[in-house]
């Protein structure tokens, strides 16, 4: 693993402005830098606490279960990593991403994601990624405490704790190579991500990032020097197209072991 890159990827934070929808004029928004590798549902309680203390000089109890987030009238899938949501929804010209906190009239498709649910979903993602990479051998050989530690490191934003557990999941060797690359492509405007079984090598040739995009979204990337219509962003940066998939999987994956790539239209 490339420690320098991984450390940078882990440490990056994004600025988010929370507005309480339907509040009085006095209510000031809440600003916060949140880590890309974290999840929104872990931070919502703090935001709600702030709002409950400052809402017009009166203590207002906000039901955490009732609260939900939306941006631009679109309910947010809070079980995506913050970095993914940020890259997906932030307006191109804005520095800060503004999120509305709603406390009523939750749309039926937007489920409340509590901390426990988040943990299970996270572990599910990790297992899935490992099945793709190692056919689940590594995750199955890990102890239950190590699973708990992995989630704990993510939820408490503890790099050293994560580094200790995640290393074996990220590793591959010539004798035990990755079987497939866990990569998900999010296209703006589509309800869900695209995911395919993409091997790291094809006919002994090492596949690069553009190969993966070709397979996932052949319509979005221009072939034979044709200019691509979209940028393919991961962790807020357009990933160089010649990056090998193995390197991508090792260093640019989120703690849930997936490489989340967002395709945004150029311009």
């Amino acid at each position, binding site marked *: *693993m*490339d420690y*320098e*890159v991984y450390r*940078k*990827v882990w440490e*990056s*934070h*994004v*600025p988010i402005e929370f507005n309480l929808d339907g509040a009085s004029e006095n209510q000031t928004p*809440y*600003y*916060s*830098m949140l880590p890309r590798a974290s999840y929104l549902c872990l931070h919502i309680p703090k935001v709600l606490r*702030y709002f409950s*203390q400052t809402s017009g000089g009166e203590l207002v109890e906000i039901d955490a279960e009732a609260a939900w987030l939306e941006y631009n009238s679109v309910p947010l899938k809070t079980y995506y990593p913050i970095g993914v949501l940020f890259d997906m929804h932030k307006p191109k010209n804005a*520095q*800060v991403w503004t999120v509305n906190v709603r406390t009523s009239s939750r749309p039926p498709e937007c489920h409340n994601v509590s901390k426990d649910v988040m943990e299970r979903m996270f572990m599910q993602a990790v297992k899935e990624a490992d099945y793709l990479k190692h056919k689940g051998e590594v995750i199955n050989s890990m102890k239950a405490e190590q699973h708990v530690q992995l989630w704990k490191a993510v939820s408490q934003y503890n790099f050293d704790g994560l580094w200790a557990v995640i290393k074996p999941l990220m*590793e*591959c060797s010539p004798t035990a190579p990755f079987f497939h690359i866990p990569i998900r492509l999010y296209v703006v405007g589509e309800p869900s991500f695209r995911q395919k079984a993409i091997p790291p090598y094809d006919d002994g040739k*090492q596949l*690069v990032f553009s190969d993966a995009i070709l397979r996932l979204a052949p319509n979005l990337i221009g072939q034979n020097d044709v200019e691509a219509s979209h940028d393919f962003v991961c*962790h*807020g*940066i*357009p*990933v*160089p197209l*010649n*990056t*090998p998939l*193995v*390197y991508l999987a*090792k*260093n*640019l994956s989120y703690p849930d072991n997936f490489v989340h790539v967002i395709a945004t239209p150029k311009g």
Partner: protein
Amino acid sequence: MSSDECQPTTSGVSGSVDYRMEILRLLEVRDQKHAFIEGIFRNYSKMIDTLSKTRISRVSNRSFDESGGGSDEIRKLRDEISEVYKKKSKNDQELIDANRRLAECERNLNAITEERDKLKSDLDKMCARIAQQELLVKQTLDDNQNMRDEMIALKTTCDALTRRKMEWEEERIALLNKIRELNEKYAEFFNREVDDQEERRRMKIQEEITKAIQDTSRDERTNSLLQQQENIPIGDVLLGDVVPSQALAKFDSNDGEVNDVLWLSGETFASAGSDRRIRIWRIDSQGRYQKLCSLSGANQAVTRLDYDKDKHVLLGSSNDNMCRLWNVDNQRLLTTLSGHTDKVSCARYHQSHNIVSGSYDRCIKLWDIHNQRCTKSYFPGSIVLDIIGRQSLGGAAFISAHFDKKIRFWDGRNSEPFKIVEMSGKVTSLALSEDGLQLLASTRDDTLSLIDIRNYHILHIYSAEQYRTSGDLARCVISPGQDYVAAGSADGHVYVWNSQTTRLEKILARGGHESAVLCLSWCPTGVGLLSGDKIRRVCYWH
């Protein structure tokens, strides 16, 4: 690590921009974009935190004010109460602390007291022990002093005794010298007396001669006697052993028992008896005998005789615990050897200057003739009845016969005998053959045994129906030619056996002794046997 293994591949594929560096650069750019906002956001969150804190404190303060109402008194009282409570709790705490300290102190005190008691008892014990030790030391010192005193006393006693011993030693030596002087003087006086006697006898003979000269009537008879005498061969020459057949002469020799007879030459012999004298006789083949002289000096019966033919010195052992030496030629007493503590049963010449003697005191002594001293003592542990000491036995060897039925062979150098032969009875006498190879032993079980002293085997045993050993000192004899052995019996007869066939050759009885025959002596010429009995008599057998 993965970058290391992936990088060369990618660069090899396209040679385009290093994707890793590109990624790092892009990440850097992205972070820089957020850097400005990040600072603002951080400050904001800090402010929010402070704000919420102040708000919380303000809310709590406000609630207090409201409940306090308006009354300052109540507040004051409340303050006082709280003050009192505070004090009380403080006092309580102090009390508890003090109690704890007190308990601790008590515990310490107890521990210390206990320790002190223990130490005290230890001290007492130690004191007692010290006192004990001191007592012991004192005792030891006293003992030491006593012992030292005793030692000094003993030392002085020892010194005194040593001094006395030395004095006595000197005295003893002086007395010994005196004794010797006196002995010499005694011998001198005695010899003078003998001389006087001789003189008187000579005078008497002179008188008789003069008388006889005057009386010449019996001349012819004398001449005829002298002629007869010339026909019989006499001399010291061994002519072969002849079994004696008749008693040629019979006379009273000594008063009481005749303990020993001994041929001095072919025609002289000595007899010793319980009358304390040794008489020397001349006897011819016809049986004519003549007393030559008598040797006196012994204070008790003389038991055994031995003769030194070269020096003409006669050795006699006596029951007065002494051995004596006489010069036969002038009848002088030469030496007295004293040292035995009981009757001396036998004494013999051993080597040229030595004498061995055996005694009833169960020891054998070896004497030096020249300085008249005992040179060595042997302790066989049994009464010595006879002894043989001859140069022919080889070196310093000698043989002793004992009351405990044993014959002991000594080599003179060791204090233990080198050979012991056990006999069937008390061994009364020993006789050595002329060649020194055969030993005749008379035992109390009425037999005689001939022993080969080369291998200590008994060659022959001689016995007869009527033969009874006459006494503890009964003396047997071997003829000079070793053809016959003879012994005297308790019935007064003399028995003669052939030494080789053990046949009884002769019993000499007729005209002989009337009492037990004690001693025999075979004439060196082989012809003629002397025997002495219990009552004065000596017989000459021919």
